[in-house]
């Protein structure tokens, strides 16, 4: 009977869905469900030999706990690390009919999955914590219902409050700097609760220690059944970042202001010589906006030749990495405007030290250049004047010296001469020398007058009438030489000239023509005028001896240069004429052919002062 019962009991136990075992007081395994046996990998038969201490050999204190005869449970694991299963066993006292404890009922559950999940959560929490610490990103959570605010440790750290600090919403808001930051956070937090609007703002926090720090505060409403129940947010210290950004922005602004206000054209080009930065001066010079200039090359902006030269310079700088400094360049824009620049091109390197383009700086030196040209002209003019002066000084020195030498010589002769007749002869010579000296001085004076009175007043003079007047004063001389004069000058033509000079020019050219007449022909002089641009040309042509210009060239206008064996030739008239013409800003040229005649052309410059 007992056996039957046992069997029945046994059967019942075996089929229990929960793994269950019966253990005797000595720890021997009395009975167990199949599921329990499977859990511990025990064979269905012969398990009676096993006792619970052997089955749960890695559970410590099992004996003591059992002897307490109380219900207890614990976690334990089975198997090695890689194939490890977590179990939870509960020991409950086993009573017989007389309420005597005869052993323990063991119920075991496989809790591997739960443990795994727990571990996973633990791991995730740890990661989260680390992450939050490393990134200095804290988080917070606000329960709308309970009005409780939760801060993570990182959030506390950012507020510089002790980790035990428990915040509430009002305190949290008061951590923000009064003014914009505090108003803003109040507003957006309110909006998040009531309108479920997420926020993400950069604001200034005043920490528990009184430091002002930039933080990034973000929040998002969590809804349940269309109602906001929680606000979850992140909280980040971005102070260093904002400071760096501000610094960078300040630096950039400084740089931009500096570049833009430099009185220089500044540009940066990439390796293809495309402009990637231009300053205000450059834009103003090119009459284009920065937008229009960025990405353009010199070929888009300048004359082709100029652009080619510039591109070659760019390539040179990029290739050799040697800057071009202070090079004088000429830029011609598409519209033909020419500007002189002092240009520097400096290679530009990226952060890795590789050449990425070049920086160009150009200074407009057109005005300086113009001044330089003016100065050069002035120097040329001065040097011409100087040459003239030296020449004149030589003339003076030579002419005066020759007279004084004659005086000395003749006086020396006179001193030692006894012969009365010879003395008289020498005295005659002295008189002649004295006359010569006087004449020379007079000539020199005239030249000095012309060259010192450069600003003599010019008048509008009728050339035709002046010729008639001079002809009149020379009547006897012209008659004697049987001169024919053809005055073919336009009767109405006037030129601006100094009256005395015009008289002298015509007089000297007429007498010159007569002096060098061909003895075999009657002298014929023709005077004509021509207008050319803004000049009037007076031409005086004769049929005289002519002169070998290839041989004498410009010498004919030199002082005391005569080229014909002629008693009247003093070599002064033409020198005087040239000085007078040049003093009035004009010039004189000569054409001549030996035995045919000579033509002098006097250019009156209407434009000069």
């Amino acid at each position, binding site marked *: 009977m007992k056996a039957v019962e046992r069997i029945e009991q046994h059967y019942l136990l075996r089929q229990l869905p929960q793994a269950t075992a019966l253990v005797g007081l000595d720890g021997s395994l009395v009975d167990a469900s199949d599921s329990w046996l499977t859990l511990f990998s025990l064979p269905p038969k012969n398990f009676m030999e096993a006792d619970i201490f052997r089955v749960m050999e890695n559970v410590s204190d099992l004996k003591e706990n059992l002897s307490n005869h109380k219900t207890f449970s614990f976690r334990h694991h089975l198997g090695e690390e890689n194939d490890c299963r977590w179990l939870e066993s509960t020991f409950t006292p086993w009573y017989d009919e007389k309420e005597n404890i005869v052993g323990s009922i063991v119920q075991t559950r496989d809790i591997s999955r739960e443990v795994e999940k727990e571990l996973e959560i633990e791991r995730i929490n740890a990661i989260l914590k680390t992450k939050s610490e490393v990134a200095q990103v804290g988080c917070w959570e606000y329960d709308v219902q309970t009005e409780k605010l939760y801060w993570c440790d990182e959030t506390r750290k950012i507020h510089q409050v002790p980790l035990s600090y428990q915040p509430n919403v009002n305190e949290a808001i008061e951590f923000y700097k009064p003014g914009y930051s505090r108003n803003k956070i109040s507003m957006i937090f309110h909006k998040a609760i009531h309108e479920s609007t997420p926020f993400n703002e950069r604001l200034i926090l005043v920490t528990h220690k009184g430091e002002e720090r930039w933080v990034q505060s973000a929040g998002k409403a969590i809804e349940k059944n269309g109602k906001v129940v929680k606000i979850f947010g992140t909280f980040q210290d971005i102070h260093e970042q904002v400071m760096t950004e501000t610094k960078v922005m300040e630096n950039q602004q400084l740089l931009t202001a500096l570049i833009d206000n430099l009185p220089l054209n500044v540009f940066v080009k990439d390796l293809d010589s495309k402009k990637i930065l231009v300053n205000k001066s450059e834009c103003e010079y090119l009459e284009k906006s920065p937008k229009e200039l960025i990405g353009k090359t010199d070929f888009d902006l300048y004359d082709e030749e100029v652009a080619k030269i510039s591109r070659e310079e760019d390539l040179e700088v990029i290739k050799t990495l040697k800057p071009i400094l202070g090079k004088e360049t000429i830029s011609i824009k598409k519209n033909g405007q020419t500007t002189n620049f002092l240009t520097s091109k400096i290679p530009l390197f990226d952060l890795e030290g590789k050449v990425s383009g070049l920086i160009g700086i150009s200074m407009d030196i057109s005005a300086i250049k113009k001044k330089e040209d003016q100065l050069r002209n002035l120097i040329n003019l001065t040097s011409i004047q100087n040459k003239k002066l030296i020449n004149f000084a030589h003339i003076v020195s030579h002419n005066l010296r020759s007279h004084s030498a*004659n005086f000395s010589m003749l006086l020396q002769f006179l001193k030692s001469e006894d012969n009365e007749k010879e003395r008289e002869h020498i005295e005659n010579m002295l008189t002649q020398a004295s006359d010569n000296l006087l004449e020379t001085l007079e000539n020199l004076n005239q030249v000095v007058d012309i060259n010192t009175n450069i600003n003599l007043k010019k008048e509008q003079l009728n050339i035709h009438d002046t010729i008639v007047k001079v002809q009149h004063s020379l009547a006897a001389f012209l008659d004697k030489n049987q001169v024919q004069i053809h005055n073919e000058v336009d009767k109405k033509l006037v030129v601006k000239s100094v009256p005395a000079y015009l008289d002298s020019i015509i007089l000297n050219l007429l007498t010159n023509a007569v002096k060098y007449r061909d003895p075999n022909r009657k002298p014929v002089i023709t005077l004509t005028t021509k207008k050319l641009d803004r000049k009037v040309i007076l031409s005086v042509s004769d049929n005289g001896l002519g002169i070998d210009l290839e041989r004498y060239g410009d010498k004919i206008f030199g002082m005391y240069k*005569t080229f014909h064996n002629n008693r009247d030739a003093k070599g002064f008239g033409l020198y005087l004429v040239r000085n007078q013409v040049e003093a009035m800003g004009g010039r004189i040229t000569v054409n001549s052919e030996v035995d045919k005649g000579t033509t002098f052309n006097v250019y009156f410059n209407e434009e000069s002062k």
Partner: protein
Amino acid sequence: MKKVSSIFIVDDDPITVFGIKKMLKPVAICDDIQIFQNGKEAYDALKSRITSEQGIPEVIFLDINMPIMDGWDFLKEMIDLDIQERIIINMITSSIDPSDYQRWNDFKEKCPHQLNFKNKPIFKIEVSDLEGFHMAS
């Protein structure tokens, strides 16, 4: 007193010509003193003397500043005549222009004749002005 076969005076200033002639009297005996107003006249005369095999001058007094052909041009043309005899040429000038002196120096190098340079005023002509240094060639 030195006997000179022929002397040329080339100068357009009658006073200087008078002076040279006067100063020659006490130092030279010469029956053939020729006066020329400029280099061209002197050159023409020299050329015709060569072709007609008349004696060429032993001494020439030569002014620099003259019309038509000046002293330098005369010298240039004269060198081209390739005269074998060594002529004594006294350049007489009132010029103190250093460039004239430089030119004289340049000419002295290439001129086969004896080239002297005399600044006016001159008061006396020495016998040595009429004699060449006879080089031991």
